[in-house]
């Protein structure tokens, strides 16, 4: 086991329940490296959704709340507002965050609450066995889109931005180092920070949507659908059609963060949260 794992994992919970080659483990690694780089292990409050991705924080030996499907953000809100000094990091799936949890997502973004949301987009409901998600490509066949998905997917980053998020970035699981740095940046950013990680789910999305259960081939396929923000500026709309932009997509340092405005506005004794 890598020393960062030795240091940060709950040994009793191992091994990870993830399938071989699943992107969640890589994302876990990127996260603990970010936490380590910032030296904030005792300040973090980790919240996981229900789904394969929601298990990431369960393996990290810190204060962890494994919540309900779709409800990470309200739980995170309670944790953050009961002590605005803590660093709240949320791990959620595309189904958890954008499917059942979509309303909390847009509202927490609107409030610009200072939490970091890492959304693992595997384009499918992984844990329940491969059903269509709000991120599944149009026409893709899944276990519940037998004749092809009749729905267009969301662009989660666009949605986050319009809703009010002030830090928005997208990576794939193949960008482990950039991802780790981005997570650190997001944690440091004061406001609602959203990171979408395109991740390979070889067992479900791989087998069902992409016709391959090979993690590396799948991840290569996903990577091939991305364009970095930098190179995007040189491409025309047609070349960008159907591509994911990768990198930091939005970073607004000017908007006041929610807990700050809250404790600022809060009347006579405002500004001071209860001990």
């Amino acid at each position, binding site marked *: *086991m*890598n020393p960062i794992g030795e240091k940060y994992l709950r040994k009793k919970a191992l091994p990870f329940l993830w399938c071989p080659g699943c992107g969640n483990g890589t994302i876990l690694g990127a996260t603990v490296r970010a936490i380590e780089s910032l030296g904030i292990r005792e300040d973090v409050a980790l919240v996981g959704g229900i789904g394969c991705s929601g298990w990431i924080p369960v393996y990290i030996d810190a204060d962890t709340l494994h919540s309900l499907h779709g409800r990470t953000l309200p739980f995170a809100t309670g944790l953050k507002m009961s002590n605005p000094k803590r660093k709240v990091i949320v791990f959620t799936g595309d189904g958890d965050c954008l499917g059942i949890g979509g309303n909390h997502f847009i509202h927490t973004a609107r409030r610009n609450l200072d939490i970091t949301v890492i959304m693992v987009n595997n384009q499918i409901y992984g844990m329940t066995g491969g059903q269509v998600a709000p991120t599944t490509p149009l026409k893709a066949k899944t276990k519940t889109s037998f004749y092809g998905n009749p729905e267009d997917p969301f662009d989660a980053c666009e949605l986050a931005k319009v809703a009010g998020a002030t830090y928005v970035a997208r990576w794939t699981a193949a960008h482990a180092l950039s991802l780790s740095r981005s997570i650190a940046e997001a944690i440091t950013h004061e406001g609602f920070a959203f990171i979408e990680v395109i991740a390979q789910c070889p067992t479900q999305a791989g087998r069902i949507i992409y016709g391959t259960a090979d993690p590396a081939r799948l991840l290569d396929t996903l990577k091939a659908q991305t364009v970095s923000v930098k190179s995007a500026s040189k491409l025309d709309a047609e070349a960008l059609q159907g591509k994911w932009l990768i990198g930091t997509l939005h970073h607004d340092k000017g908007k006041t963060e929610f807990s700050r405005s809250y404790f600022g506005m809060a009347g006579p004794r405002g500004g001071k949260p209860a001990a």
Partner: protein
Amino acid sequence: MVDIIIDEQYCKGCELCMHYCPKQILKKSGRRNAKGYVPPMVADPEQCSNCRTCELICPELAITLEDKP
């Protein structure tokens, strides 16, 4: 120079490390661990550029790069 240590106990044989090693020096070991997975072996450690790709991508945190003294 680094040591590339693979913790076979945790490896799930996903081959991500092998695929993404720019030097292609991680290969299938052919051995099976207790769970039946085939972990990688380091074919040509001298070639390693210490890029840490394998360490960062391994979903099981099973790879450690250790600087050799």
